[in-house]
Structures are given as structure tokens and as C-alpha cells.
């Protein structure tokens, strides 16, 4: 898949360097590669992991019993051995450190397409309020752009990639250009009924999975295994949906197994290119380009920029403000499982559906009446999924009380499909307590200085998690169920930072170069040919998953890069 000289990065005699080099091949990098190759630029993408194409490499349709591990996790596939999430929180040879008193886990994707291969495909737009939260409640900061600036790009992302959903007209949950949503599963209808009884809003999910053919890709065949990568390419992943068409232009070179070390610079402070480790050969290479797009993931991009020091950039690239690595946020997460007797003895049927829930709870409450300033949405799970390692555990806590023998088998049969669960996903507010920086003492296996994380949840986030658990308890009660685990009362089971894998904000966007690293087009204030197209530039989280906004912003930035290149302004 690489160009003639792509694997080494060496430029053969007479061949020009690319116009653009992109660091990272996930949502932000994949979209930049798609847009810029279409605009006529010659682009090279470097990716720290190996090549991985869902139509060739996915383990879709494997039965868990095809492996003695029965689908359970491994160190570098923490979501299961068949999951397309190579990488994880604990990658051999690639350490990070956590400051005393902090708890943080850093999940990194290490494969072509990064974390777009195994994600939940929950593709929510940020709403108009999400770009101007400080104006509303005085906390955090406003974005330098508004929903109206991003809306045209959300619309294009919807049509290019495909998303199902339903128009609802909710105030801060903008409708998109939707394919029809799939009908709910049986267990989802039970939750829906209880939720409606409690006056809660529950609507069809908005997932980037095709329920109709689109742009040459077939519709979903409902095997429920999106996280393993889709052999039919019916869901969104960067390799399947963005990099394939970018390759087809003949203008894209992909260099896999290439770990970026630093952005090299020219005497005037602009980027000259990128130096990287060719992991297979164990040597350092440099690619020169007119434009450098950084899309290595929020924290990895901050690390790269911080490690790119020169006389013009003594604090790291575009960091005279000192803001790089600051204002790190993740999504507030806590969850609960429940056993619901009314779902027992279900009729055997195929309830796989798409690889994710068909319904979810958007945030519709008024925070002014609550003990926390920002909202959350609720994701749901349950059903008669493909059993894997861990199936039917915890029988001592079920009505049978434990047991063995024929009666235990009969109980297992009747309980199958009676387990459901809720996951709250809330907005964290950026503060000075959550950030990453270079740990001066520790390097990775290539000698690249690593990140050290600092993390502290604020009281309002704990309060938000408590409210989530209270809501779950009401829903479980309404269904006549019982929780399947105990939640710590003081913390409400709030997950450690990084567990929800929505890191944002470390390469902050803003109009003031004294307070931000990149401008409203995600262009570095202090190096005009450097752009950041991942979650780094986000000024705030929202109660929405970030991927759709990363894609829209990357599309917007890429369009800007193409214009500026044509105008010879970079």
C-alpha cells in the first residue's frame, strides 16, 4: 500500500517530497488525507502502527469458540482478542507516567486508522450551546468558532460517511442528514417503555453505520460486530471510508510503523518536515513537506509538539503561551448493570442488530436546577449477544443463589438475555488540574521523552456521576430489576481519567496566541504551515462523543489548507 519509496521514507533521486505530511491516520488524519488528495495535493501519511484494512484484516464473524481465549482481552487488545483496537492502555515499550495522587490511563491505537477501527460509532454533533459554554455558565472557555461555522461540515460528513438517526428537533442535539434508524431490539423496547413512564427522553441512536447503501458501500448486514472492523465496509473507519478513496487518487503514500519523534523546523520557525523512527529498520528518517498536519491524537500530538524544540520554539512548537498539554479533558463515565426478571425466558431470536445500541438518552435537563453545570447522555446495553469468556458469571448473585447441575443449566438458559446496563457519558469542564507534560526522566524505547499525566475530578463531575447513578437506579426500579454490582457511594463509580478514551483539549484553539496554540482554523499560531486536526484543538468537551466533530473540523481545516496552498500563503 505504500509508494515505491514509502516504506523507508527515503526520497529517490528526482522525486519531489510530498506537499503535505500527515502524522496519524485516524479520524483527523484520515479526513485530512481524503480532502487534501482530492484537492490535488500529494500527501504522505505516517502511522505508528502497521497497515490494517477492515475488508482484509477484520475478524468479523469469527465465533468466540474458535479461540481457546473465547474472545477475551489481551494486553494490546483490551476490548477482546478479535477487536480491531490494537494498542491499548499498556503498550510494551511505550510507557507514560502518572503524577502522584493522579489516576489516568492513556489508550493509544497502534494500527492504520487508529481508534476509528473499534469505536462505538456514536456520531453526535456538538450543539450550538456546546461552543459557547463560558458565556452561559462562566466556566471553561468559549470556542473561537460557533455551531454555524461547523454545521456545513457536519452536513458534508453525514453525506460522505453516512449516519443513521431520527430528526427530533431537540434544542442542543442538532439533527443531521440521517439514514433511517434500525428498529429497537426487544430489551431496548423494555428500557424505552420504562423511560417513557418516567418522563425521560429516549430516541434512536445516531451511529455512523449504513442502514442503506451509500457512496458505493453496502448497507449493514446486522452482525453486531462493528468493533472488530467491518469486512463489508458498512460502518465508518478511517481506512475503509477515507484512506481507500484517498489511495485511489494516486496521490497518497502511507508509511506504516513510523513513530514521529519531532517536527523539524526552518530558520524562520515554520516546519521543515517530520523526523520519525522507522520501527522495522530501527533508524530515524525525515520527511520534508510544505505543510505538516498533526493528527496523532490529542495527547500524542501535544507530546510531539512539546518534543519539537528549537531556537525559535524553545518551549516546544507554537508553545510560547505554555498552553500545550493543558486543559486535558475526558468524558465523565460511570455505569451499572442490571438483571431484569421480566426479560427472562426470552424467545430465541437474532438480536445482534448494528454494533451498538439502537436507542440512547440525550441530555435534555436544565443544569441550573442541578448540582453540576453540564449534561450527560446515557448509553444502553443488553440482549442476547454472542456469548464469550465471562458468560453467565456471578450465578451466586442471581435468584438461583449459585448452585450446580441441571438446575443451574436451566437457570442459565432462562437468564440469558435478561441482563441490561446503563453508561452515563458526561461533559467534564477543563481546569488547570488536568494536564499532561513531558516527564523529564523517562523515555520510550526509541528514546523519545514520554508524557506525565495529572488528573483530578472536580466536585461537580462527581455530583454529575452521582446523578447518573440515581437516574440508573430509577430506571432499574421501573423495570423491576436489580443492579448486578455495587457502586461506591462517595465516587459514584466515576471512571479514572482516560478510561472513556475521549481525550481532548491539549492543543487548544483560540484567537489569542497568548492563551492558545492554534487559531480558529487549527493552524499553529507560531508556525503557519503546521495544523492540528485531531481532538487537541477542542476548547471544551460536550455531553457528546467527539469523533463527528473531529471529522468536521478536520474537513474544515483541510479545505482551508488547500485554499492557502493555492494562494501560496503557507
Amino acid at each position, binding site marked *: 500500500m505504500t509508494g515505491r519509496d514509502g516504506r523507508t521514507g527515503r526520497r529517490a533521486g528526482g522525486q519531489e517530497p510530498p506537499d503535505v505530511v500527515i502524522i496519524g491516520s485516524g479520524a483527523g488524519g484520515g479526513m485530512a488525507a481524503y480532502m487534501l488528495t482530492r484537492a490535488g495535493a500529494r500527501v504522505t501519511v505516517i502511522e505508528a502502527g502497521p497497515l490494517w484494512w477492515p475488508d482484509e484484516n477484520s475478524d*468479523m*464473524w469469527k*465465533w468466540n*469458540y*474458535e479461540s*481457546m*481465549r*473465547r474472545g*477475551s482481552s489481551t494486553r494490546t487488545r483490551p476490548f477482546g482478542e478479535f477487536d480491531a483496537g490494537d494498542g491499548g492502555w499498556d503498550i510494551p515499550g511505550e510507557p507514560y507516567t502518572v503524577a502522584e495522587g493522579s489516576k489516568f490511563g492513556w489508550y493509544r491505537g497502534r494500527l492504520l486508522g487508529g481508534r476509528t477501527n473499534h469505536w462505538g460509532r456514536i456520531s453526535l454533533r456538538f450543539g450550538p450551546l456546546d461552543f459557547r459554554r463560558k458565556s452561559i455558565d462562566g466556566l471553561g472557555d468559549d470556542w473561537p468558532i460557533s455551531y454555524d461555522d461547523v454545521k456545513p461540515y457536519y452536513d458534508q460528513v453525514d*453525506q460522505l460517511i453516512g449516519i443513521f438517526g431520527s430528526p427530533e428537533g431537540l434544542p442542543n442535539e442538532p439533527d443531521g*442528514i440521517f*439514514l433511517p434508524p*434500525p*428498529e429497537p*431490539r*426487544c430489551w431496548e*423496547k423494555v428500557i424505552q417503555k420504562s423511560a417513557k413512564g418516567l418522563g425521560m427522553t429516549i430516541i434512536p441512536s445516531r451511529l455512523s453505520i449504513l*442502514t442503506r*447503501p*451509500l*457512496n*458505493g*458501500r*453496502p448497507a449493514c*448486514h*446486522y*452482525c*453486531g*460486530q462493528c468493533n472488530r472492523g467491518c*469486512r*463489508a465496509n458498512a460502518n465508518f473507519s478511517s481506512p475503509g471510508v477515507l484512506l481507500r478513496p484517498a489511495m485511489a487518487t494516486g496521490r497518497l503514500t502511507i508509511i506504516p510503523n513510523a513513530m514521529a519523534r519531532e517536527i523539524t523546523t526552518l530558520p524562520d520557525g515554520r516546519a521543515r518536515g517530520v523526523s520519525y523512527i522507522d520501527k522495522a529498520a530501527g533508524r530515524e528518517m525525515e520527511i520534508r513537506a510544505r505543510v505538516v498536519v498533526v493528527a496523532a491524537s490529542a495527547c500524542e500530538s501535544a507530546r510531539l509538539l512539546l518534543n519539537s524544540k528549537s531556537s525559535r520554539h524553545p518551549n516546544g512548537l507554537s508553545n510560547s503561551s505554555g498552553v500545550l498539554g493543558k486543559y486535558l479533558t475526558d468524558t465523565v463515565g460511570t455505569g451499572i448493570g442490571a438483571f431484569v426478571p421480566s426479560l427472562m425466558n426470552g424467545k*430465541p*431470536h*437474532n*438480536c445482534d*442488530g448494528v454494533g451498538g445500541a439502537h436507542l440512547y438518552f440525550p441530555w435534555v435537563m436544565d443544569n441550573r436546577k442541578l448540582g453540576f453545570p453540564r449534561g450527560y447522555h446515557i448509553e444502553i446495553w443488553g440482549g*442476547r*449477544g*454472542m*456469548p*464469550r*469468556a*465471562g*458468560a*453467565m*458469571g*456471578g*450465578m*451466586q448473585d442471581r435468584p438461583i*443463589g*449459585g*448452585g*450446580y*447441575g*441441571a438446575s*443451574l*443449566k436451566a437457570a*442459565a*438458559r432462562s437468564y*440469558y438475555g435478561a441482563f441490561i446496563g446503563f453508561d452515563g457519558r458526561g461533559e467534564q469542564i477543563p481546569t488547570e488540574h488536568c494536564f499532561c507534560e513531558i516527564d523529564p526522566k523517562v523515555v520510550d524505547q526509541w528514546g523519545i521523552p514520554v508524557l506525565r499525566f495529572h488528573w483530578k475530578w472536580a466536585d461537580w463531575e462527581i455530583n454529575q456521576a452521582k446523578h447518573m447513578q440515581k437516574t440508573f437506579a430509577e430506571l432499574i426500579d421501573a423495570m423491576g430489576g436489580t443492579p448486578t454490582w455495587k457502586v461506591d457511594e462517595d465516587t459514584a463509580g466515576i471512571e479514572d481519567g482516560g478510561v472513556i478514551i475521549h481525550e481532548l483539549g491539549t492543543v487548544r484553539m483560540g484567537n489569542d496566541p497568548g492563551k492558545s496554540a492554534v487559531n480558529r482554523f487549527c493552524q499553529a499560531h507560531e508556525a503557519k504551515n503546521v495544523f492540528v486536526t485531531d481532538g487537541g484543538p477542542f476548547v471544551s468537551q460536550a455531553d457528546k462523543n467527539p469523533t463527528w466533530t473531529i471529522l468536521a473540523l478536520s474537513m474544515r481545516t483541510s479545505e482551508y489548507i488547500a485554499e492557502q496552498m493555492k494562494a501560496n500563503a503557507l
Partner: protein
Amino acid sequence: MTDIARRDVLGLMAAIPLLRAKWEQSLPARPPDRLPAAFFTATEFQTVRILADLIVPRDDHSGSASDAGVPEFLDFVMTEWPDNQTPIRGGLAWLDRESTHRSGKPFREVTAGDQAAILDDIAYPARAKAEMAAGVEFFTRFRDLVLSGFYSSKEGVKDLGYRGNTFVTEWKGCPQ
């Protein structure tokens, strides 16, 4: 939304048989090989088989734990999830000691009735006696592993009535 282009429909029609063929090729021709135990001693492995089959016996719906390769699964996961090694090895030893104490013989050699009497004392944590706590801990863990292995096996998947992992040309939602 853009209209469904003719080529999209053709692409869909073309993709499904190809994908189905690839899928069928990927199905295993036979269950995983049965190998000699890597972790358990021969004596332990005998007890593991007996105990696993007491937890999941053959019935009208499906075979037993050992029919489904659960003992081999248990041996594999001892290495895969090593935190289980000492509690399971120690628990098997506890079981033999308890059995010897009651009937003069290790668990694998006593009658079905004597085996059941011990299990009845450790299989229901809420009503177990305090002095059985170590046995309860072991059995709870062991049962979890056995059920995990059985219900994720081909035999167990069929027993539960899982009907997915296949093509659905038109998703209709809940059939009930």
C-alpha cells in the same frame, strides 16, 4: 440524502455472496485440539473434569462441560489469567482435604452422593456455613470459569439459543 445509486445496489448484491463465502471458509473444521494439561497435574485434571461435569452435566438440551472441552479451556486459562492459579490449585486441594476428612478419600474417589454433599455445602454462598468460606470462595470462582468456558463453547452457544453472527438482509427489530 443522496438517492441510492444503481451501482450501490449492485455493489450490495455482489458483496453478500462473496462475504458469505469468505465467512464460511473461516469457520473451524473441528473443535480445538485436546492437549495434555499444561498447568494441572494429571490428578488435578481428573478432579477438574469431575467437578466441571457436576456443574454442567449432560441434559436434554446439550452435552456436559467435558463434552464441550471445558476442562481444556480451564487448563488454558490458568496460564492466560494466572491470578487464578493459586486459588484454583489451592481450592482443589481444599476439596480433597474436606472429602478425606468426611469420607476418607479424595473427592475424585468418593461416591456421587458424598460429592454432592460437599457441593451442597459450598455452592450456595448465602446459606453456607462460616467454616465453609474457603470452599465457597473456590467454588464460586471455579463455577464462573466453568460456565464461562461452557457457554462460550459451540455447545453452550447453541444451548442458550444465540441465533446471530450471520447476515440479516432486512432488520426488523424485536420479533415479539
